[in-house]
Structures are given as structure tokens and as C-alpha cells.
């Protein structure tokens, strides 16, 4: 991948390997994301996209390789430490607190991060602006929300942590086409505000249009890299992921 040399790296991954028990999923991933960049990761079901994001935030340990995020090595850090260092993660499966209200779930993103807490009112306003529906349902328990509403809360919670690097795992899952569009637009806006975004998506067309760069993951390895526009034109991508 061509990284603009003038820009600092927000994320630098070298030879990353990870898995679950005896199953190895990631086989030596290299990935460079410059500060302020928007990078998309695409790949079939089970390719290892979620595993990659989970390893980056320290939810599962790396077996080999290095990860440097925002100038800091993440080796051996707990997920909490990684998040405190400015990395936000909208996880697969949303991972909300079902017995807490929408408001409590959203605020929890800032509750344990002193810097983010200071900016909580501003960030909350941004989240409610993005998803007015959440404001209406502020007092509803997260466990009783619809799938799409839960997805909005998960995105809102990550935004509350005021991240400098945001990892997003399939945000459009379960959202209506119109709402997906506003989520993509919001991600683009957050990115324009200076946040580096790494987006995992099944909506390949959309994410390649948004992305500065993209990688294609297959069975735990990076098979293709390029700019969003390059990959949109790539025959293999068109055949396998865009069914063209």
C-alpha cells in the first residue's frame, strides 16, 4: 500500500497472527494506515475481518507480529488500555449492556476515559444528531431495542470515547438502506474531522467508494491492496464481491 510519507502512521501492523484455541485465523497480516486515512477491509464471511479487529484492540491476544497504533506498541496491552490510548471499536455483535438504558450505554463510552468525559456533552449531541431515534428512546433498556437501534447505540458508544482511530465492524448490518447511508456519511464526516477510520463492511461497493485505501482479506491473509477506486475496477473484486 502506498503510504503518503508526509503523514504519520496511525496504525502499523506487521506479520500479525492470531486465532482461537487450536484454530489459527490470521496468517501474517501487514497493514499500514496513515493518520487521517479512511481504510476499508473487505472479505468473505469467515475471512478473519472481525478477528483482525479483535486482535488489534487486544480482545484476543496476538500470537506473532506487532501492532503499533497512534505511535504506541500495543503488545500485551489489555483492551481497556488500548481504548484509553484513543482507539475506538464498534464490535461485531454490538456488545451492549442490555439492562442499562440507551443513555447509560451511550454515556458508558466516555465514563471511564477522563478526556472523553470532558467532551461528553458535545459528543452526545453529535450522536443524537446522527441518530435522532436514540434521543427519543433515551430511557429504554438496550436489551429491548430493535437490531438496528442496537447498532446505532454501539456506534454512538464508540463515538463517545472520542477516538483518534476508529475501528468499525459492519456498521450497516441490520440498518435500513437509508440509515446505512447516513452512517456512512457520518463516518466520512468523522474522518474529515481528523479521525482515522478502519471500516469492515459487507457493503463492498459503498465502502470502496468511501475509502482512500482498501485491502481484501481471504482466509486470514491480505490478497489484494489498492486505493478504493483501483479495487472497484479490479476484475477479481468485481467478480467475487460485487457479482458483476
Amino acid at each position: 500500500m502506498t503510504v503518503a510519507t508526509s503523514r504519520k502512521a496511525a496504525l502499523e501492523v506487521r506479520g500479525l497472527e492470531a486465532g482461537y484455541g487450536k484454530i489459527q485465523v490470521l496468517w501474517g497480516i501487514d497493514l499500514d494506515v496513515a493518520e487521517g486515512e479512511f481504510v476499508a477491509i473487505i472479505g468473505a464471511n469467515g475471512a478473519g475481518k472481525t478477528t483482525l479487529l479483535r486482535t488489534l484492540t487486544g480482545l484476543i491476544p496476538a500470537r506473532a507480529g506487532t501492532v503499533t497504533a497512534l505511535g504506541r506498541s500495543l503488545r500485551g496491552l489489555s483492551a481497556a488500555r488500548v481504548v484509553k490510548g484513543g482507539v475506538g471499536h464498534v464490535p461485531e455483535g454490538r456488545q451492549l449492556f442490555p439492562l442499562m438504558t440507551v443513555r447509560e450505554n451511550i454515556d458508558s463510552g466516555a465514563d471511564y476515559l477522563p478526556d472523553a468525559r470532558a467532551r461528553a456533552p458535545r459528543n452526545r449531541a453529535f450522536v443524537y444528531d446522527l441518530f435522532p431515534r436514540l434521543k427519543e428512546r433515551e430511557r429504554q433498556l438496550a436489551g429491548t431495542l430493535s437490531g438496528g437501534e442496537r447498532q446505532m447505540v454501539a456506534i454512538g458508544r464508540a463515538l463517545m470515547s472520542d477516538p483518534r482511530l476508529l475501528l468499525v465492524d459492519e456498521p450497516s448490518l441490520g440498518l435500513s438502506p437509508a440509515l446505512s447511508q447516513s452512517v456512512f456519511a457520518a463516518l466520512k464526516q468523522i474522518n474529515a474531522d481528523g479521525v482515522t477510520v478502519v471500516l469492515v463492511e459487507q457493503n463492498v461497493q459503498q465502502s470502496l467508494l468511501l475509502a482512500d485505501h482498501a485491502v481484501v482479506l481471504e482466509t486470514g491473509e491480505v490478497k489484494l491492496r489498492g486505493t478504493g477506486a483501483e479495487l472497484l475496477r479490479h476484475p477479481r473484486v468485481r467478480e467475487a464481491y460485487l457479482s458483476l
Partner: protein
Amino acid sequence: MDTTLLVQALVSGVLAAGLYALVSVGLALAIGVIGIVNFAHGEFFMVGAFLAYQLFVTFGIDPVWSLFIVAPALFALGGVIYTSTIRFVLKAPELNQMLLTFGIGIILQNLALLIWGGDPRTIAGISYRGIGYQIGGVSIGLVPLASFVISLVLVLGLYWMLSSTPLGRAMRAVAQNRTGAALVGLEVNRVYLVAFALSALLAGIGGVMIAVIQSPTPVVGFAFTLKAFAIVVVAGLGNVRGILFAALFVAVAESLVATMVPNGDTLRNAVFFAIIFAVLIRRSWRTV
């Protein structure tokens, strides 16, 4: 039937319920937050009792003051046991977890037997033990009354902590979604550690009180594990109010059977199993 006897049994049951609730909320805390069914919970209670006994025998410290020594000591013991064993089995199958805590319980029990032997130990000559009040033929001892009040304050304090403090919110977050909690910046393992240590602390305080109320032996803990278990089963998880009512129900049932049934005293433990049995069967009917 003699109504004074009946009222006396009810009052004794209510007073005993405080201590039962105290031990049960500790057990429920470990199950609810960490997901660990701690069969050694009653052993923390027993260790608290024997620490109070030893502090009295060796240093002449009154159990009222021992509370302030035993509480931090049991918090530390809980922390050490969590760090050295429990945290390694968090993702293990439940059966393995139960075997581990069962084993820890047996080790603690046998250590106590080695140190103190199997005979009941009495904290002798405390002036306030004999104090009691007579109300219309019903007697209320100062010690059971004080233990009821202390227990109630601690149980309500725990409720307040869980519902209204940052630590409580963190515990609820970790209990409801471990991954989500890690992703908002909570050190999940540290929250587990505090929850487990706090659970041991609550049991230890209960132990100090039982050392004054009864003359405990090193096997006193297991009976309380069972009682707490019955209460948590009746209450269901995750609500302190439910535990208070269940403790009341269970303790009063025990007291009534012990007083009103001929030879009822020998049936005390049977009462708990009967209640667990009845509740589980009733639940399974409801879900069919």
C-alpha cells in the same frame, strides 16, 4: 397451638434472615458479576468466625472491633484466591469451576480443622451476649438483633453501591457484557477481583457475627453455603430486594419447622433442600 411460641419462632426467623441475606448477597455478587458459583463462599464465613475467635483468645479483642480487622483480612484473602486460582478458570466449563471452588472450600475447611480442631469454639465471657428484651413473653436477644441490623445495613449498602456508585456501575457493566465493558475502558479482571474480594468480605463479617451468636466448628461454613444457595435460587439472580425476601422466607420457614415440628431441630437443613426442590419444580412447570 401456643401463639407465644409461634410469635417467638417468627421473630427468631426474621432476625436470622438478616445474616442469611448478608451471606447470600455475597454469593450472588460472585455469581452475578463474575459468573462463578463459589462453593467456598461459606468457608470465607467460617474463616471470619475463627479469625474473630482467635483475635479474642490471643489479644482479647472484642468481636465488635474484630469486625474492622476481619473485613479487610477477608477482602485480602478473597483477592489472593481470585488472583491465584479463579481468574484462570473464567472461561473453563462450569463443572471445572465448581470443582475448583469446592476444592478451595475443602482445603480451607481442613486447614481450620488442623488449626482449631473439630470442637465448637465459644467466645466466652462477652458481657452483651446475655442482654435481651422481653416483649409480651417474646424474647429478643441483643446479639441477634444487632446482627440483624448490621446485616441489613450492609445488604442495603451493597444495593446502593451497585445502583449508585461508579464502581457499582462498572460491576453491572462487566456483569452484563464483558466484551462491551472492556471496550469502554474497564479492566474487566480488576473489576472481577474487587467483586470477589468484596463477596469474601461480606461473608467474613457474617462469620464474626456467627462466632458470637453460636459456638461454631470448622464445618459451619458449608451449612451456610447451602442456605445461601437456597436463597439465591429462590430469589433468582441480579436483585438484592429478591434476596432479602427470599432470606426472610427461608429463615422463617426454618425457624417454624425447628420450633413447631416435633424433633424439628434435626430437620433444619432438610428445609433448605425442600425449598430448593419446590422452587425448581415450580419454575419448570411455569416454563413448560
